[in-house]
């Protein structure tokens, strides 16, 4: 009994320590956003003279709301596209037997090993030639299909009971009908979890949007954040204020979809 108690105490201690490690940077970001310039490098845990100045400056300096909206559009579009392509590809790879299936699957898996930086330039040239610079589509299109999403969906389709699909075929359902009306409702939580991960990934995307967009009005929020820190001047206070604002949508998603988020991290591993 005593041993069990000491084990739980130890467990709780470890959990509390890990929570502090995870939460502290966020806490520091928020309090720093309320500190004035002279206080920003002090180690005080509570701002001595709290100020909205950083927020006012951040809003004055760049179109934060527009950029948040851009981020939202880009992340939503990317998530929808990646989910759609992975559902279709996953279905074809699991359900159909066709020549070259193994080859396609292998190539697909291999693309996961190619770093984005390697294909960045060709992608940039292509987007440039199509004329999708400064356009959310330009940010989204190269990421319309995600190998990670396809392989995740592929795995969950593989474990889907074939008898249900057979029953639907006997009922006269088409392939698309089977995917949308039989499989999808039953793997809903997997798809939602995957969607959340894809959305967060898309929200945090930095390098590619920076290449495609030059104008602040067209860029997602992550690009805007960087503008506070450059070789001339570091506006830490305003950076923290803008970062805090940029976290709000993600925080809201966490609040509303908490159950699914925990599930998605367990299912796909923390990304």
């Amino acid at each position: 009994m005593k041993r069990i108690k000491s084990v739980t105490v130890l467990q709780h201690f470890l959990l509390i320590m890990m929570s502090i490690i995870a939460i502290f940077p966020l806490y520091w970001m928020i309090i720093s956003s309320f500190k004035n310039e002279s206080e920003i490098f002090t180690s005080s845990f509570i701002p001595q003279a709290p100020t909205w100045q950083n927020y006012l400056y951040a809003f004055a300096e760049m179109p934060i709301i527009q950029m948040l909206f851009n981020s939202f559009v880009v992340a939503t579009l990317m998530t929808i596209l990646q989910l759609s392509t992975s559902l279709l590809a996953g279905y074809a790879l699991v359900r159909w037997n066709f020549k070259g299936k193994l080859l396609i699957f292998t190539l697909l898996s291999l693309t996961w090993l190619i770093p984005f930086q390697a294909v960045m330039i060709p992608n940039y040239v292509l987007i440039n030639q199509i004329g999708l610079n400064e356009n959310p589509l330009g940010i989204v299109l190269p990421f319309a299909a995600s190998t990670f999403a396809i392989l995740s969906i592929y795995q969950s389709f593989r474990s889907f009971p074939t008898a249900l699909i057979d029953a639907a075929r006997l009922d006269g359902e088409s392939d698309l009908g089977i995917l949308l009306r039989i499989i999808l409702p039953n793997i809903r939580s997997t798809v939602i979890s995957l969607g959340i991960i894809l959305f967060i990934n898309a929200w945090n995307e930095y390098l590619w949007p920076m290449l495609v967009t030059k104008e602040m009005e067209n860029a997602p929020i992550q690009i805007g954040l960087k503008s506070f820190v450059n070789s001339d001047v570091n506006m830490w206070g305003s950076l923290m204020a803008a970062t805090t604002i940029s976290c709000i949508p993600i925080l809201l998603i966490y609040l509303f979809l908490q159950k699914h988020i925990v599930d998605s991290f367990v299912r796909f591993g923390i990304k």
Partner: protein
Amino acid sequence: MGSIKVEQMKKSFGQKEILKGIDVDIPDGSFAILLGPSGCGKSTLLRMIAGLEEPTSGSIFINDQDITYSEPKDRDIGMVFQNYALYPHMTVFKNIEYGLKIKKIEKNKRLNMVNKVIEMVELTEHANKRPGELSGGQRQRVALARAIVKRPHAFLMDEPLSNLDAKLRNQMRQELIELQKELQTTFLYVTHDQIEAMSMGSYIIIMNNGHIMQKGTPKEIYTNPANLFVAQFIGSPPTNILSYGDYSIGIRPENMSMKEDELNVNDDYVLTGAVVSTEHLGGESIYCLTTDWGKVFVKGESTWQTPTKETQIAFSKEDVLVFDKSGERVRDVNLVENLLADMKVSNNRREPVVL
């Protein structure tokens, strides 16, 4: 409403040949059973008839129409799966209605049809529940209802009772027999359980290793097995086999009797053996004895007693089945007579011969 005919059906998965030329002709309105051990190809055959699997070669006819390469939905068949395969996200009602909806049957007519079938399988009060809230037996009924509502030419059932407990299985067996009588539709039922096959089927097809071993009524299969496999597969405990040179002599356990002293006129042959174990099943008992010819099972009336001393096991000439080296039944009466004579058995004597 629907006869099923399969001609020269072959199926391979890669290098592995699962079906090796199957011919089946199931008359309209019969309760046909595909019986065989696991992996014999019976489920594959059923899936090909359903259109869920494409044959490597051969043809399938339903009502004399070649449907070998038709889509499953165009075959006019209802299928019941081993794991029920109910759509988990739909209610009982929606599960049954789904196929009709896809067929674009007009709503009022559709609701009518579904309600009627739900009533028939006694699930009215569960119509709005999801499959997860139902018991195994109820799920099985939903699966049946889903097949029935389409009013198909034929029903295909893939071990539909194997997930139920013994008591429920017995009950469902009776219900299926009644259902088949009521619908007057061809049933093709796959099972590995010979008791299910014997008790339900009007026509049994026994398969092994991708071949058909025998087709016929339960009586034909039981009393007149075509080969060693069928003789041993049907009946519990299986037919006793005594090896004699190139031949195998089979006698069913129930055709043997244990005699302490008197033998009667029908007892042509006698073995002696000692009882090693007994199963008292209530109405009957199964005795396992060791003899000079190997282990022998005898089925007899229950005495609730286990004989301890050596006993005689008697059987008559009529009940002897003889099989050749390849396992085929030897039907040549003279050969059988000679063989038995060879075994130093004479059936002209009044006295039974001790083997």
